[in-house]
């Protein structure tokens, strides 16, 4: 019993203290991984903020965006043109979703809209596969995937670029939501569809805008994850990595998605490296959820989520 207690509560911390450079490397690895999760989580947050809908298809949107981009690159389209065309495709997709899926379901319960996004998920997965095939595709956008050493700590260039991209994206989104007219309208729609409509907020336009922005976020996430692992269908599964981030950060907070991502990223790396070997490893997937649930017990609305008080 004492041995177990030592292994769980003492040995990992001694290990950390004994090799501080390695600990820093684990922390940096966690921060970078967390920001990559945040990139995916942001897409969920945007749509939830504007419509109160949990978009089950966000992971597939990442995949669809990456497939479109790499498909264009494979056909010899220059990178910048391919990026612009992919953006056009994602905006067109947003229009189609608004016209064919959301508009007929205005004022329906959120669970109905959620179910609609499940359908959308499977449609996009099948359609993307039909269009671009299921093979692994290399996504080379010129970002080197090598590491360099700083004071004994290894840093990966691709992950560093992804972190910087995530930071820029979050700043732009924060400004967009706080400082622009359309950003305020988005928040109004998120609070109450009908009230927003009654004061003249164009719900349809808002939905197109928000799905388009989520599409652009999906392109960035697809770009980074695709460069990391190649573009393939398992990209859609990274949505599973975003879920604990959302649970922890709150479903409607952009900063929450970032802070949540960082906590999950760092937490799961520390868990896997220092406590994983005690149980044979491979704990990081479920450890992230345990971490999120632990936070949830203390703050059910998540770290940055809005506390909902309803009169009964």
């Amino acid at each position, binding site marked *: 019993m004492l041995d177990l207690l030592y292994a769980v509560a003492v040995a990992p911390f001694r290990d950390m203290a004994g090799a501080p450079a390695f600990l820093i490397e684990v922390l940096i690895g966690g921060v970078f991984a967390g920001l990559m999760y945040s990139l995916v989580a942001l897409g969920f947050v945007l749509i939830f903020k504007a419509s109160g809908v949990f978009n089950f298809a966000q992971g597939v949107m990442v995949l669809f965006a990456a497939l479109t981009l790499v498909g264009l690159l494979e056909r010899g389209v220059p990178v910048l043109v391919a990026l612009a065309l992919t953006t056009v495709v994602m905006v067109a997709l947003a229009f189609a979703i608004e016209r064919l899926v959301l508009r007929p379901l205005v004022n329906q319960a959120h669970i109905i809209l959620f179910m609609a996004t499940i359908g959308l998920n499977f449609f996009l997965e099948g359609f993307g596969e039909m269009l671009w095939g299921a093979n*692994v595709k290399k996504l080379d956008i010129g970002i080197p995937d090598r590491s360099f050493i700083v004071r004994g700590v290894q840093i990966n260039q691709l992950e560093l670029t992804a972190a910087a991209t995530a930071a820029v994206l979050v700043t732009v989104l924060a400004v967009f939501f706080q400082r622009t007219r359309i950003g305020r309208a988005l928040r109004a729609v998120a609070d109450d569809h009908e009230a927003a409509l009654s004061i003249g907020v164009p719900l349809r336009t808002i939905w197109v805008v928000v799905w388009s922005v989520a599409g652009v976020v999906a392109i960035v996430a697809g770009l980074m994850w695709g460069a990391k*692992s*190649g573009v393939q269908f398992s990209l859609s599964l990274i949505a599973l990595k975003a879920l604990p981030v959302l649970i922890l950060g709150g479903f409607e907070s952009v900063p929450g998605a970032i802070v949540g991502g960082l906590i999950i990223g760092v937490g799961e790396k520390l868990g896997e490296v220092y406590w994983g070997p005690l149980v044979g490893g491979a704990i990081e997937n479920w450890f992230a959820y345990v971490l999120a649930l632990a936070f949830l017990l203390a703050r059910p609305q998540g770290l940055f989520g809005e506390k909902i008080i309803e009169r009964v």
Partner: protein
Amino acid sequence: MRRRRILIAVLAALALAAPVTAAAQSREVFVPLLVYRTGPYAPSGIPIADGFVDYFTLLNERDGGINGVKLAWEECETQYDNKQGIECYERLKGKSPVVVNPYSTAITYSLIPKAPVDKIVVFSMGYGMSAASDGRWFPWVFNFPTNYWSQASAVIRYIGAQEGGLEKLKGKKVAHIFHNSAYGKEAHPTLEELAKKYQFELSLLAVDHPGQEQKATWLQVRRLNPDWIFMSGWGVMNQVAIKEAVSIGFKMDHLIGNWWSANDSDVVPAGEGAKGYKGATFHAPGTNFKVHADLLKLVYEKGKGSAKKEDLGAPLYNRGIVNAMLTAEAIRTAMTKFGNKPLTGEQVRWGFENLNLTEQRLEQLGMKSFTHPVKVTCEDHEGSGPVLIQQWDGKKWNVVSDWIAPMRDVVRPKIEGAAVEESKKLGYTMRDCAKEK
């Protein structure tokens, strides 16, 4: 009135065609294909399925099937998921199949208890339950030409040779990075025994499904600084692992994937960085074989090919060819005893157990030097076949070793011990092979 006449004519045509269809079916051998062409493991599943289907198509086109008996097959999508695999099996069982290739260790484990009941051979070529190599306990399961334990021992033999002899392994660090599944863990018992025997330090590092994010594993690799890494990955896990290895600057020629971790799709995302990566195999890569020429001429020129022409020769495509060829040759062997007609599962089981694929036969099949001869017996359903090491040069795979014999002295006793244990769970009794000869 006219519509009614047309309807009657159609019904009459169908009624006349029905016996013909039934007769046609009765001249066929049916093989269900549990494939995964969609989902996260599709990049690995597609080339194997293509290779398998193309070879069966070749046999039907070139030879009219096997000794005049056409081959029939139907694909069922499993997405490499155990539940879907079982559903596929149950659905296709009604079509009287004689053999099933599960293409998943987990699905194989689920089908093993069903095989003797349904009288359908389970052929898990180079995967599945290693213990089932002991045919005395598992008459319905075959995993030749070699199994995971033999592969692990052959890879350790290769590493030993690279270090200057097996005795030089003492004190070396070897890490096994594995898919956290029944498949990924299958090699552990052999690796652990060999670590004790040759006194190398073995570290087991698991990667959870699907393996999209492996940072923590590779941080541990950085700290551990192993001399060699052996990897049992699948699907996206392989591509990410190879990229991570490149990223941390691990010596690529000291990273050896098992035979499910060394396909073109695994190395492509890492680009130039993957140069030098090695993988185990039990057949050659490439298209420099007569069988490929036949496939191009008799299948692809007729527009009946499954893959893109440029994908022929990839390791997993060639594995599909080998899998289909071994299946067909087992059926052909069964026909030498039971006649050139559609066979039952029990008859085909006999064919599998008496398969003797010689060098001469491989040459006749257009596969000289493509794969190794194999002889299956009542006791040995594995064949204890040797293993090759192939290496990626940035454009293609090249074989860089001779055939490496597994350590049968280590592996076979383990198989026999494990077979007893696994059989106990299933309530099997050992058969006397001497009486069956």
